[in-house]
């Protein structure tokens, strides 16, 4: 066990914070999208940097990745990757309430990613008395081969990734996407400090 691993209590606490955040975020999304949003309990796992590629490779079907940076007080920061599967993407424009042809596929998934990421992280930040800012979302790549190539070319400066798998099911528009939160070393220490504070308050 090293300084970046979470204890069992810390892990439970984080899972709970994420569950609540997901719950509230999906409620907001349902209202905004004007449809029911069903949501499974998100699975959380830690992935070490050197294993991330393998872990992403399991999702060979993923064809598009959108990245968005986030940063809050107390040194809580990281990068959120949203990964999509191709068959899910046909009716996103419908779902988002745009007219057909009004926006390109790229723009649809960037828009959706931004909404998913910021809605979730805003609620999450709120629970730990924090506040997030975001960089503009960027489409890393449209096809898996180049996604992997892109990731491998990045000189990542983080050691542990928190992989939060979210499966959204929206009535009539079923789609799945994985949200992977990449969190650099010192931000993990900062998150642990926040979690410990919450645990101490119980």
């Amino acid at each position, binding site marked *: 066990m090293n300084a970046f691993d979470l204890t069992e209590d810390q892990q439970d606490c984080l899972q709970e914070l994420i569950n609540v955040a997901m719950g509230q975020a999906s409620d907001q999304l349902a209202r*905004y999208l004007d449809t029911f949003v069903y949501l499974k309990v998100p699975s959380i796992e830690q992935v070490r940097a050197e294993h991330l590629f393998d872990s992403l490779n399991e999702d060979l079907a993923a064809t598009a990745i959108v990245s968005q940076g986030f940063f809050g007080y107390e040194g809580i920061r990281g990068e959120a990757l949203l990964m999509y599967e191709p068959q899910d993407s046909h009716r996103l424009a419908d779902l988002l309430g*745009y007219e057909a042809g*009004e926006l*390109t596929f*790229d723009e649809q998934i960037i828009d959706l990613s931004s909404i998913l990421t910021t809605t979730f992280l805003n609620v999450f930040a709120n629970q730990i008395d924090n506040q997030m800012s975001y960089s503009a979302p960027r489409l890393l790549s449209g096809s898996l081969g180049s996604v992997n190539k892109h990731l491998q070319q990045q000189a990542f400066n983080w050691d542990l990734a928190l992989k939060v798998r979210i499966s959204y099911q929206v009535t009539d528009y079923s789609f799945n996407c994985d949200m992977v939160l990449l969190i650099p070393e010192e931000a993990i220490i900062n998150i642990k400090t926040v979690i410990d504070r919450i645990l101490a308050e119980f």
Partner: protein
Amino acid sequence: MLDALSKNISDQLNTGILILDHDFNILMWNRFLKVHANKSDKDVIGNSIFKVFPELPRKWFERKLSSVIQLKNQSFCSWEQRHHLFELSHSRPITTDSDFMAQNCTFMPIEGENGAERICILIEDVTDVCHYQTQLTKVLQELALANRIDGLTQTFNRKHWEECLASEFSRAVRYKQDLALIMLDLDEFKVLNDTYGHQGGDIALIETAKSINELLRMGDLFGRYGGEEFAIILPNTDLAGAEEVAERIRIDIANNIIEFQEQNITVTVSIGVAVVNEQDLRYEDLISHADIALYQAKKLGRNRVCIAKKKVVA
């Protein structure tokens, strides 16, 4: 004090700031926008954003802002998806070919006086980024092309041609389709080089490639295999079809008169033709069959087409 400072700073920022109420009326803008939109306060403040900037895609814009209002989220719009939202002048009208400023826009919810909810739009000038990114993409495309092309003859180079053959071969085997290969070699090329010099030899290669190109169909893949050797992949073509193409190429080249330094050069080619058969396991097998036929054509006196013999299974 802070208000005065903020005003001072916001008017010197190289980023546009626009504050709207929930009915999309403009409450405030900063100097950057005023200058680049070239409109005056009285035509802007208090007016609907759609009246001031009629170029905005209204439905899209309203939907975008509804997520900001309802979810209290930041929302973004990058030049890569939409070059610009607002038709603004930019600082490089001479050195770029952009008509309008390329923009990254951020939409965010903010709290106004008495807790009133407002929308703030930040507009960044990314004309430079857009310009260089576009140039980079263009250069990368050119590089990718240059990487596939033989500089002298403008046909595919050996490496790319072989990659094409590998993929055509596996496709043909998988779907049990015809695939033919033509390999051809200029006859007595060394003599030609000795007679007319290397420049003469180069011209002969260029002209030969040109005449072959004119005889090919869309989908045929033509490359320079080696020094004076060319190769053509003919997808969905049987032996008779390939032989016909080969014969036409042979006659065309033999009749072609190449002018070089007021001299007329004629060249002939020897051609080997092969088609994929069931015994072929690798694309290299197809090459060696065509190569053997080509050698046969040379041996039989050049300027002729030879067909690879079908292997008889004993």
